[in-house]
Each structure stands twice: as C-alpha cells, then as structure tokens.
C-alpha cells in the first residue's frame, strides 16, 4: 500500500513509539534495577547500567603496616576492586585537582619521591626506596570504565532472607482457592438462574445485579465482626486462610455469577431440552454439556478472579494476620515500602517477584485475559 509511506503514517508511528516507550520505561527500569548490584543501585540511575560507563572513585592505600621489602624497594601492593567486577582502569591521579593526570602504564611520583603504578585490572604497586612511615596511605583517584553487569544476588536475598519467598507461597495459597471456590459455586448458581425454573428467580437475579454496586469496603467491618464472633465461639483464629477464601468468594460472587449467566444464556436452549427428554438430570446436563461448552468462559473468569486475588491488598490486609506465615505479597511489599524505603534493591526485586505470576498469565493467556477483562470490568 502507498499509504504506509506517507508522512502522516510515519508521524503516527513515531507518536505510537513515543507512547510505547513511555509505557514500558517504568517496568523496564524496575526490572533492570532488580538485577543490579545493590551498592551501585543506590548511587547511580538504572539507565547508566545499560552502557559502559565511566566511574570516578577515590581509594586510600593502606599504610606502613602493609609494606613488604622486595628487590630493594619497600612496596605496598593491592587491588582497587574485586575480581570479576569487569572494570577497567582508564586513568588515575594522585591529587584531587588532577584526577586524570596519568594513564595506566605511566608512573606517578609523589612529593616524597615514592612512586605508584596501576595496571588495567586495578592492581597497584606503591614503592619507595625508604621505609613507609605513616599509618595512613595516600589517596588514589581513579577513572574506570564499568561494563554493564547484572546479578541475581538481589533475588537470592529477597526470596530467602526478606520473606518474599514465603509471601509468594502464601499468596498462592490465598489466590488459588479464592478463585476456584467462587468458580465452582457460581457455575451452579448461574446454571440454576439460567436453566432451572423456580419461584423468585427474577428477584434473585435482580439482587445479584444490585450487589454489583456494593463496594468491597462496605463489607469489611461487618464480616470482621462475624469472623471474630465465629472465632471466639469455636475457639479458632478469627483471621485464617479459609476466612480469606470465603471473603474473596463473597466479593467475587456477584460479578462471577453475572458473567457466567450472560454466557450460559447464549447457549442454545434446544440442547438442554433434548438432553432432558433423554432422561438426563440437571446434574448430568451440567457435567456433560455445560462444563465442556463453558471452558473458554471459565478460563476468562478464572484469570480475572485469580489476578484480582493475587493483586489484592485490602482483603489480605484485613482478613489475615500480618505475620510471616500468612502475609501476602502485596501486604509484604507495602510493609517493605515503609520499613526499607531506601533499600531499592529489595523493593525493586520484591515488586518484580510479585509481578512474575501476573506477567506470566498476561503473556501466556492474553486472549482470555482481555476477554475476561472486557466482559468483567463491572467487578466491585
């Protein structure tokens, strides 16, 4: 097509590219940061880690205690940075005024006539004809090139030391049943609302639609009171996993039923009638006809509800104790935001861990996700 090469088409592609870049940068920055060394993370922006960068550092050599005698010289040897850091020294200096005075192969001479050499890998040798007398060594100013380097160290720390790994399992233990239970009971509910005849069916349907407007916040206090009473009555904890499952079930019930019913209504009536004539019970119809036909609808609703439960903060905050064995990822992240607000390596990595499951679902099942989302945006 000619149109592709027109000016307005190029402009609009550029504009789209602009939007895409704006939208991807925040997540991309988080991801890159979670892979960076934590010391570098706190002193330089994440964007600097993508290219080889120049770093200026100051290093103080050790004093007289480190000296050795060799080939008629008194020497102090050492290394400016760790092995495997990948840095390469470009130039160095011995005064703060001229930090780039010498190249790596050159010899720098101090005022006291001691001299120092540095090689590319950061090994230095400071030598003097006479013995070193001072406790403190002299300063070196180095300029080095640092290539992009990434590490999984943050992930190891966050998963096992900061309790994010445990929170991940907790979240799974919350989200899976909180998705499957409503799916099970709502599919029966929606079936009876669509295909069974009974007194009060229309009223019940109206109630379901009306409860879509009830914001979740409204239920928190009354439900918590019920849980407390229930816990006191039977001597069990008021806050527990089954409690959260039922809360999520309750909050997801209206929208799940609503969506499923809309779907079931679109199935052909004749099929049910034929099955009934053949002597199938409602349960037979449900198992043999409805479930196989509804798999795509189930998938969409499953994903929607699962992501909702996985990403939820409020329900997990209110209905679970904030202890390591129960705290969910979002609540844990919020806690870390408060207590470790400056430790960006922990925050970025933790956030990325919490995003792994949603992102996996997003990329693997995008079609169902979009379908569910478009249909299910009425959720309270």
């Amino acid at each position, binding site marked *: 097509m000619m149109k592709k090469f027109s000016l307005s088409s190029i402009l609009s592609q550029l504009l789209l590219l602009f939007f895409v870049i704006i939208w991807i940068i925040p997540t991309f920055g988080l991801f890159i940061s979670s892979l960076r060394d934590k010391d570098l993370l706190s002193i330089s922006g994440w964007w600097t880690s993508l290219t080889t960068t120049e770093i200026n550092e100051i290093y103080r050599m050790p004093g007289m205690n480190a000296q050795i005698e060799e080939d008629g010289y008194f020497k102090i040897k050492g290394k400016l940075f760790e092995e495997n850091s990948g840095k390469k020294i470009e130039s160095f200096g011995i005064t703060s005024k001229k930090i780039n005075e010498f190249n790596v192969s050159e010899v720098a001479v101090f005022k006291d006539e001691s001299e120092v050499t540095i090689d590319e890998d950061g090994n230095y040798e400071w030598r003097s004809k006479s013995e070193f007398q001072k406790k403190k060594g002299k300063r070196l100013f180095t300029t080095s090139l640092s290539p992009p380097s990434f590490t999984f160290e943050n992930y190891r720390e966050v998963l096992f030391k900061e309790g994010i790994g445990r929170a991940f399992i907790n979240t799974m233990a919350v989200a899976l049943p909180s998705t*499957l239970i409503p799916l099970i009971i709502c599919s029966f509910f929606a079936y009876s609302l669509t295909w069974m005849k009974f007194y009060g069916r229309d009223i019940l349907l109206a109630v379901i639609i009306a409860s879509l407007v009830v914001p979740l916040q409204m239920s928190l206090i009354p439900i918590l009171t019920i849980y407390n009473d229930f816990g006191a009555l039977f001597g069990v904890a008021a806050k527990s996993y089954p409690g959260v499952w039922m809360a999520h079930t309750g909050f997801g*019930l209206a929208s799940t039923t609503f969506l499923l019913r809309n779907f079931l209504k679109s199935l052909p009536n004749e099929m049910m009638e034929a099955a009934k004539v053949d002597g199938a019970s409602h349960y037979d119809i449900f198992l043999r006809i409805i479930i196989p036909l509804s798999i795509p609808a189930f998938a969409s609703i499953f994903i929607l509800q699962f992501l909702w439960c996985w990403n939820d903060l409020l329900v997990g905050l209110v209905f679970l104790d904030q202890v390591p064995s129960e705290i969910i990822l979002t609540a844990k992240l919020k806690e870390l*935001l408060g207590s470790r607000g400056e430790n960006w390596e922990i925050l970025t990595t933790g956030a990325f861990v919490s995003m792994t499951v949603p992102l996996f679902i997003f990329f693997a099942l995008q079609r169902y996700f979009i379908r569910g989302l478009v249909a299910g945006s009425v959720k309270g």
Partner: protein
Amino acid sequence: MFIVFLGILFFISYFHISNLVLDAYGRRSIKRYNFENSIRVIVFIAPAFIVLFIFILYPVFETVRLSFYDKFGREFVGLYNYKWAIGDPEFRRSILNNFVWLLVVPTLSTFFGLVIAKLADNIWWGSIAKSIIFMPMAISFVGAGVIWKFIYEYRGPGDTQIGLLNAIIVSFGYEPQAWITIPFWNNFFLMAIMIWIQTGLALVIFSAALRSIPKEMLEAARIDGASELKIFFSIIIPYLEQTILVIWTLITIIVLRIFDIIFAMTNGEWQTGVLANLMYDWMFRGGGDSGRGSVLAIVIMIGVIPILAWNLYKHRQEQKI
C-alpha cells in the same frame, strides 16, 4: 498447602455427592422426580446464596445501621456521624481529591486509550505496541506503586539522582523535587500511575470497537479528501460515542474505590487522602470508629450507584440489539 486442596475438595464433593444422591433418588418414580427437582434447586443455589447473604446483603444493612451508632456500634447517635463528616476538613479534602481523580483519570485514560488504539490500528507492530501498553493492567497497584515511587525518588540537590524524573529535571538544569510531598500537585503524580494502568483497559475495548466502524465510511471520507485528523474527530469519535461513555464510566467506578495506590505511596499524607483511605483509617487505626467508617463506606457506595446503574443499563441495551 494441604488445607488448600481440602478447601477446594470440600465444595466439589458437596455438589457431587448431593447430586448423586438426588439422581439415585429421583430415578425411582415420577412422583419423586418433582420433589427431587425442587430439592436440587436448593442444592444448586444454597452455597452461593448463603455466601451472597453473609458477605454482601447483611453487610449492607449492617453498615447502614452502624452509621447511626457510636464508634463501638453500641449506642444510637442519630445523624451525628453524618454531621461529623460534613464538618470534617479531612473529609472535605478527601471528597475534593476524589473529585479531581474522577475528573482527570477516566478522561485521560479514555483519551490516551482511544488515541493509541487508533495509532496502533493497521500497523504491523500494532499488536506488540498494544500488549506493552496493556501490560500494566496485570500488575498489582502496590507493584505499580513501587515502580513509580522509584521514578519519583528524590535525592538532595548535590547527589546523583537515581529517580528518573529528577534525573531528567536535573539534566535540564532545574532543582530536584520531592514530587510526592508537594501538596495538591502530588495528587497528579499519583494519578499518573492510575492512568498508566487504566489506559490499557480503554485501549483493548477501543481497538475492538474500531474494527466495527464500517470501512466504506472511512474510505468515502478519504476519497472526499478528508485528512486523517479530520476523520478521527468527525467520524471516529462520534461513531464511538457510546463506547467512550462506557469506558469512561468503567474507569470512573474503579477510580471511586481507589485505595491501594495511595495507601502504598503516601498513606494519605501530604494531603493526598481519598475517601477509601480515610475510611480505612477510621475503621482500623487506633481501635477504629465503625460509625464514621460506615458513613464513609456509604458515601462511596452512593457515588458508585448512579454510574454503575447507567453502565448496566447500557450493557442491557447493547445485548438487546
């Protein structure tokens, strides 16, 4: 982990066993068949209905009742809590903030969604672009909070800025700012997060809707020499008017209940509080005040009702067509 399977198994076996019993019972005679059917209705409905009653219906009435009672829910205080709310400066600010959120976020999300949907239409890399812009929809609000807090990160004027926004500002020679602590304007920095998330929702709905516009109409306009901009404003926007309204209301409903982002980013400090955060504070901080918390919950619900009612009405209308 074991308990997880137990919990799910419980519900499956409830339905399975009770239905098998009914099947076995009902097959014996026709008289029993009718009885069996009415029992089965109850079996199918009961769990969902009980959950619906406990978790939605009862709480609504209980919340309305509590709003007329004192902070422990014991003594009747009439309209006291409502009067308090009207006079409370924090409540007014939350309402105002909520209002600004409602004005800005749905409008901009819808606008960006429509523009991006149009731009990505008929371009070979359009679906990749859409995926990327849609991706934030999958992330939790708290996760998004961390992402953006990192962007807004502030360091003193002399230090290296590790927050992207401040780094950009500094590179242009301006002073770095602690963005989320500047009263009033910080609201907009929090809103940016929500727009970043919700634009994806608008985008996917719009890109489906764009395909429904008759090709002949667009072709005719092009033959008549209309520019793409002209087509966008004179044909596409009027044609999608209904869709625009539906999306706008959808996002409005989500924004009315916004809680997590503010809770994670500022906790309502620096004058960023909205109704849901204020409610959470009154319910759970310092022993809680169920009366005032309930009033705030009711205010949120009253805000949602007309918008959702309209939305459902539209939904029904579309289904009829």
